């Protein structure tokens, strides 16, 4: 559905509109689903995938056929688990065992759950969960084991936090708690996905030895979303921001969204952004281990979106007033850049890191720390894609111009401007020439006597003959020759 505000927005942001059109017309999926060969229950699963996640559904559906169904079901299973966790109307006595046993239900024929609140947006997925379990039982045992293992760990982790919440309203107190919570709900996903990628032979097995890298992927996404969703979570009485951080800025968590505390809340969000930024370099490092294009796209798009989201929320007071998200045009551009190679993904990271840095202000208590974090990301990108080579400096002592340097860019821009000028002149004169030809042609078609005019002119008669008779006699002279 196109909203009138969207029309207005894209009318003034034409570049973004172009991105959307480009993405929709030019983007070629690496692999495509074959819906005609799918069982009805699988088709239902993909329908749920579309409903529950706008952002993930598209990338999942372009995955390599080997991983398409396992990862789609993995997503739905975790979404089901997450829905139960999020539903504050389910009593802890009922919720805790559900979370801890959820991994067993994933294979149970006909299992579904009707206990969710009617307002819960993904309630229907659990009501019709038998479709997921039916398909899940068809998945290769190796994949199934991995997915079940992660579901078990995540369910237990969620239950632990749920349990804590009974005793203390702020279940995420310390930064350590926050890291642990994010590990359960997202770090584990990174771990599970890595195992699936490696199991299917589509990623470098070395990744298995780097649990920190795998988790960083999930943590970076999760922490960024937790920052962005502050308003919504606060309204729903959910608290994920660690008390250790927000208590430095406000007395009560609810105060974060109060307009009178805007400055304190912004400073608080900066510290949250700083915490999230610390995972960015590791997530880039992880992406370097993915070889297969569809797997790379699947992992890279959310990471790029996360850094863009982080830039969006950084020192943005609107996040405390309403839900904010990246515009669709921006999202399409990021997706285009993130579905090619790591170098372009690094460019996306560099771009948004610099934008974050630009918004940084010395009045922010975390000013220098944020600056250092941004510098670290740039340095990391420079280590994997060096923009300079010492050999070139050694070979060319006569001041080579680094194309990425300021002077290099200026030179390139000057050259471009020059060629632009030439083309512009060609275009102008070309247009004038063809218009002139057209005018002369029309005049000739209407009987203009260019031959007469030309030879009269060569004889030096520049002015028009004074009376019509004289003119006629001149034409006559030319028509019949000088008899």
């Amino acid at each position: 559905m196109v909203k009138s505000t969207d029309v207005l927005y894209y009318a003034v942001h034409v570049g973004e509109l172009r991105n959307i059109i480009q993405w929709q017309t030019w983007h070629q999926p690496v692999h495509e689903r074959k819906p005609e060969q799918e069982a009805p229950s699988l088709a239902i699963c993909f329908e749920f995938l579309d409903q529950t996640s706008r952002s993930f559904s598209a990338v999942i559906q372009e995955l390599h056929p080997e991983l398409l169904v396992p990862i789609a079901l993995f997503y739905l299973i975790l979404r089901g688990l997450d829905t139960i966790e999020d539903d504050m109307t389910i009593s802890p006595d009922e919720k805790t065992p559900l979370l801890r046993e959820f991994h067993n239900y994933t294979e149970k024929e006909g299992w579904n759950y009707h206990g969710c609140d009617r307002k819960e947006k993904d309630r229907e997925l659990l009501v019709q969960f038998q479709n997921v379990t039916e398909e899940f039982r068809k998945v290769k045992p190796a994949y199934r084991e991995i997915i079940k293992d992660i579901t078990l760990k995540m369910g237990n982790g969620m239950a632990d936090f749920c349990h804590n919440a009974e005793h203390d309203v702020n279940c995420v107190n310390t930064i350590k708690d926050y890291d642990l919570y994010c590990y359960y709900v997202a770090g584990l996903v990174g771990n599970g996905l890595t195992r699936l990628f490696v199991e299917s032979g589509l990623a470098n097995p070395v990744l298995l030895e780097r649990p920190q890298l795998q988790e960083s992927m999930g943590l970076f996404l999760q922490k960024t979303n937790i920052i962005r969703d502050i308003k919504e979570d606060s309204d729903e009485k959910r608290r994920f921001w660690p008390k250790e951080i927000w208590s430095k800025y406000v007395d009560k968590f609810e105060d974060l969204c109060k307009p009178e505390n805007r400055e304190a809340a912004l400073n608080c969000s900066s510290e949250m952004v700083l915490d999230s930024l610390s995972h960015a370099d590791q997530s880039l490092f992880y992406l370097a281990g993915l070889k297969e294009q569809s797997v790379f796209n699947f992992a890279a798009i959310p990471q790029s979106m996360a850094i863009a989201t982080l830039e969006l929320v950084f020192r943005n007071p609107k996040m405390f007033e309403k839900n904010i998200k990246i515009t669709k045009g921006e999202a399409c551009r990021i997706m285009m850049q993130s579905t090619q190679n790591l170098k372009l993904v690094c460019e996306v990271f560099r771009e948004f890191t610099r934008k974050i840095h630009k918004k940084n202000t010395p009045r922010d208590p975390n000013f220098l720390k944020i600056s250092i974090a941004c510098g670290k990301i740039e340095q990391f990108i420079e280590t994997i894609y060096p923009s300079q080579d010492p050999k070139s400096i050694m070979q060319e002592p006569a001041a080579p111009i680094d194309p990425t340097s300021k002077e290099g860019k200026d030179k390139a821009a000057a050259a471009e401007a020059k060629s632009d000028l030439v083309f512009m002149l060609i275009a102008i004169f070309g247009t004038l020439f063809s218009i002139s030809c057209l005018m002369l042609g029309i005049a000739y078609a209407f009987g203009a006597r260019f031959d007469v005019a030309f030879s009269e002119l060569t004889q030096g008669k520049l002015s028009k003959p004074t009376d019509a008779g004289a003119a006629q006699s001149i034409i006559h002279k030319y028509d019949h020759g000088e008899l």
Partner: protein
Amino acid sequence: MIMATSVLVTGGTGFLGSAIVHAVQEQHPEWVVTVLDLNPPNVPKKSITYKCGNITDAVFVNTIVDGIKPDVIIHSAGLVPELAFRYGREQRDHVFNINVNGTRNMLTAAKSSGVKAFVWTGSCTAITDDMRHQYRNIDERWPTSSRSLIYGESKTAAEALVLAACDEKLATCALRPSVLFGPGDYQLIPSVHACIAKGETPFVVGDGENLWDVTYVGNVADAHVLAVENLLSTRTAAGEAIFISNEEPIPFRDFCLEVWKNFGHYPSYEVHIPVSLASLVGYIAELVTCVTGTPTTLSRGSVLDACGTRYCSGGMARKLLGYKPRVGIEEGIRISCIDYAQRLKSSGAVGKLAHR
């Protein structure tokens, strides 16, 4: 157990030298420290022997070193030309005499008196003073430049001497720290602070995004101790030149903002001056000073310094020396600003520190 007994630190009463002496005594209280410096210390320490003299005097240096017969020499004495002379060539001979001849004298004396380890304080400017390039995440593969600014050139020449002197008996090593700051700093923090009074804080040359390395003096001192330990044990750093930094590259602008912040000053607005315009102004300033004969304050060089990208990878220092910066930049700036505020106060000037 490392059996070093005697350490000679040149320049040991200066900004970096005194930090090195402090680090040596802190980490190896049993070592005997002698300081050789042009100037006597402000506050002498009882545990240290002080010798006064000029390292450009070869005969004197030989006598001193022969008398002490140290196991280790940390040669940190050197001359950093003041900012006003950094871009000109007036002081070339003076700088070369101290930085190159002084080092040659120290090396000769070290060889003849059987010194085992020689750690020399070089500088990243041996590479980065060559302003034709930008230096992003450079490592030890980058070439030194013999055509740059007088300071960088002197460090390049002296470094070559130090590394060439490395042999079976004498292990040498060059450390290349980036720009230093810390308590007792008489160049960087004071000149950044001076911008507040001059009302220069709103002006940014270039985009203010150029990353730059700045290193806390205590961390560089630690690196010297690590290098000595290495040369006395595994000798893996022998004959190497190693970059030392805080491993926290930040834009120069942000460093300034943080210093000002410590003094409670926040620029109320920001004006970005394009590099080309700044260079032009610098050029005119150079012409003016050329005619009037006064030392340059603003020049094309200082513009390039302000908007250049210069930071190194700390990989080699980590690998060979096990170096890790102990004090982060933020903490380092805080300590330095407290120190400078105190110095200002005792000299009667107003240097109020922000309450944090």
